[in-house]
């Protein structure tokens, strides 16, 4: 197990290097260049001075070498947009994204798995139909749209929840205040993922119910609860774990749109700002952090496979 983990970690580092190189190439090849240089009012001399200060007047391979050298010393460089250290800029935003994405993930798991078990057992029942229709709706509505409609209904019309931000503007950062601000964005972010997990899990649980060993268990007189959790759901959870693993990067990266709609001070929004402004150090820093997080999550998913299905051996993954 330890050897397996070590080898996977080694692979992950390699993948990370590839990811960074590819991202660096794409970002630098993109037209436009840093938005700092795009102010049409700058004189030629001013523009040249800024380019020199940012180091973007150097050839791209040289810039990449510099970036790698600095990275080796643990320095992600200074953001163009913010004139601040990239690592600390990300560190300020990361907890907010983890909070939002973590809450959404928790909602997804807590709602989808039990609901899927229930629905798979009673296909065509009233709850199955309602859940199916809601899930269909949730995966069919653009997330920004759901967010805006929620703001209009709950903040503008009803006035019961805040329209945006992570804390009240007047500095009230009590837990209750934070929780109120978390409600709409986390539900909106969780909606599509919950629907997706529900559909996959329900589909695979139904397959399990049809499989001979479940029938056999029932025939042997095993209780319904035991059939559900020990036999049917346990196998249905294997694809569910995969689906959850796949949702992780989307939760972090894809939270960007939810974060923009709800003015949530997270890393996803920062990433979009950085990409649009061609803030090279910030884009690279965020890519590095998100990629490392996702690789770690994928490692955890593989470990979860091992836990759920002892027939899958480490040497096969």
């Amino acid at each position: 197990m330890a050897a397996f983990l070590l080898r996977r970690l080694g692979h992950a580092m390699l993948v990370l290097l590839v990811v960074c190189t590819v991202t660096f190439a794409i970002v630098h090849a993109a037209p436009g260049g840093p938005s700092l240089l795009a102010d049409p009012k700058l004189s030629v001399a001013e523009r040249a001075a800024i380019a020199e200060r940012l180091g973007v007047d150097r050839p791209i391979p040289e810039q990449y070498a510099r970036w790698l050298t600095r990275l080796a010393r643990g320095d992600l460089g200074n953001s163009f947009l913010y004139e601040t250290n990239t690592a600390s800029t990300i560190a300020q935003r990361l907890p907010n994204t983890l909070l939002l994405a973590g809450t959404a993930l928790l909602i997804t798991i807590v709602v989808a798995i039990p609901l899927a078990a229930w629905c798979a057992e009673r296909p065509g029942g009233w709850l199955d139909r309602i859940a199916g229709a809601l899930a269909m709706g949730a995966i069919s509505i653009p997330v920004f749209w759901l967010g805006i409609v929620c703001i209009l209904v709950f903040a503008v019309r009803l006035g019961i929840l805040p329209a945006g931000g992570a804390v009240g503007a007047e500095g009230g950062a009590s837990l209750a205040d934070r929780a109120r601000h978390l409600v709409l964005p986390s539900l909106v972010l969780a909606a599509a993922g919950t629907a997706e997990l529900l559909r996959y899990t329900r589909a695979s649980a139904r397959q399990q119910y049809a499989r001979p060993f479940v029938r056999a268990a029932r025939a042997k007189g095993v209780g319904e609860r035991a059939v559900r959790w020990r036999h049917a759901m346990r196998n249905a959870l294997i694809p569910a774990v995969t689906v959850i693993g796949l949702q992780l990067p989307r939760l972090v990266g894809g939270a960007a749109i939810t974060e923009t709609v709800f003015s949530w001070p997270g890393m996803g929004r920062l990433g979009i700002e950085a990409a649009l402004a061609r803030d090279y150090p910030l884009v690279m820093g965020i890519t590095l952090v998100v990629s490392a997080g996702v690789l770690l999550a994928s490692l955890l998913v593989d470990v979860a496979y091992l836990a759920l299905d002892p027939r899958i051996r480490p040497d096969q993954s």
Partner: protein
Amino acid sequence: MTMRVPTLPHGAWRRALSGALALSGILALAIVVACGGESVPHSATGKAGNGGTLRIPLINDPILDPVIAPDIGSVMVNKVLFPGLVRPDEQLRPTPDLAESWSTSADGLRITFKLRPGVKWHDGAPFSAHDVKFTFDQIIDLASGSRLRSDFAAISGVDVDDSLTVTFRLRTPFAPFLTLLGYNAGILPKHLLQGAPLTAATDFNRKHPVGTGPFMVQTVVPGTSLTLVRNPYYYGTPPRLDRIVFKVVPDLNAQVAQLRAGELDLITIEPANLASVQGAPGIEVLQVPVVQHYYVALNTTRGRFHPAEVRRALGMAINREAIIKGVLRDYADLPRGTIPVALRDYFADSIAPTPYAPDSALAMLARAGWRRGADGALRDAHGSTFDIELLVDKGNPTREQSALAVQQDLAKIGIHVSIRTMEFAALVRDRILPGNFDATLIWWTTPPDPDQYAFYHSGQDNNNVKWSNPRADSLLSLGRITLDSTQRRAIYHAFQRVEMEDPPVLVLFYPREIQAVTARLEGFPSLGIRDALRHSERFALRAK
């Protein structure tokens, strides 16, 4: 064959449980870390006036230094934190701020300012002429990261005469000087910033800025908000508000929703948003002419935009009134030349606007050799069609719709316009700066002065259309060194007449800034929000 009936081992549940615990742990940690805003303790915050908190949106975290700030949001905050020597009044004329009075030498090359005595920085340190010299030494230093250098290129040096007297030495007389002093040139504290590059002063720029303005920074929560409280040392009329909060709300539609939900008090909007704020309870819509002109830039190095008559004809083929009514919802003014109506002292309203006259346009184009063929397309003697690629930056509905209207109007006289939307940075760097474009729909926001030397004098860096007109060149050169306001007005009126004959660009409209504000707001001067923020001590909110 036997059927295997797998069951779940106890260990798996234990692991699942510990996974859930770990997840909750991460969440709890995230909550704790995310809760910790960076509170900046300050001493006294002044006595409460008639109070209230005014909330204004920003689209991202500002850079709290007026000399290096690159974006509009930063500029807005810095106008509150960092007063300049002068500030614009409601006629956009410079009036005293940190300077009490000033005098100009007979040759116009030396301007001496008497500073207001007893002014203190937010940290209590005394303000003096050394701070003024330090600030302008930074501004004119190419290596400092200064974004204001081209505004003050005329300065050859700054002398401290005594602690409250400072003299600027200029290379030539420079008429826009005072206006520019009141525009973005906030004064920085020498005692906190000397010795290191301005861009490296991260703690100052991001968390602990120190200015002399009526409000000072109390709390900065990155990505969320910036809370300003009253400055107990403020030298002017004591501020009426308790606090100004700049909230980071990147999306304009979200800003509108927050205004309606009572979470913001003052936003500027696009014409497309008007319908959602007009008639909303507790919200007022204000409009102010701003110093901007929106135009179609025609690359005059392209042969088909010559002679000048062709550009005039194109201008007459565009129905500006329809654009102003349809796209701008009447929140714009009908243009003459490139000097907008907001510059009341210089705008020549005696000049008749370019008429919408597609038939006359066709006649003028015919004189220039362009005739409509059987297919309706305009062609020259060689049979080539008149095609224009019109570039527009993406994401702004006003400019996109204006581009569509221009396309449709020019199609009526047989000119094929293809619209290409691009990201603004790519538009500027890859097309405009290298001169690789036919036409772009773009705009200039200028200081409240008619000097447009940098944009329309031949050979200047910002003259992207490469327009060259000898008479305009001499008028623009004369206008910036003429200090007498009557003579200056005559010069710029003459410049606008030249522009009507030989249009450097096709000006489409002068937009008005649309401000959607809470009806409780008082004391807000009738100025664009950026200039209005120079008077933040006058703002107040009526009690609910």
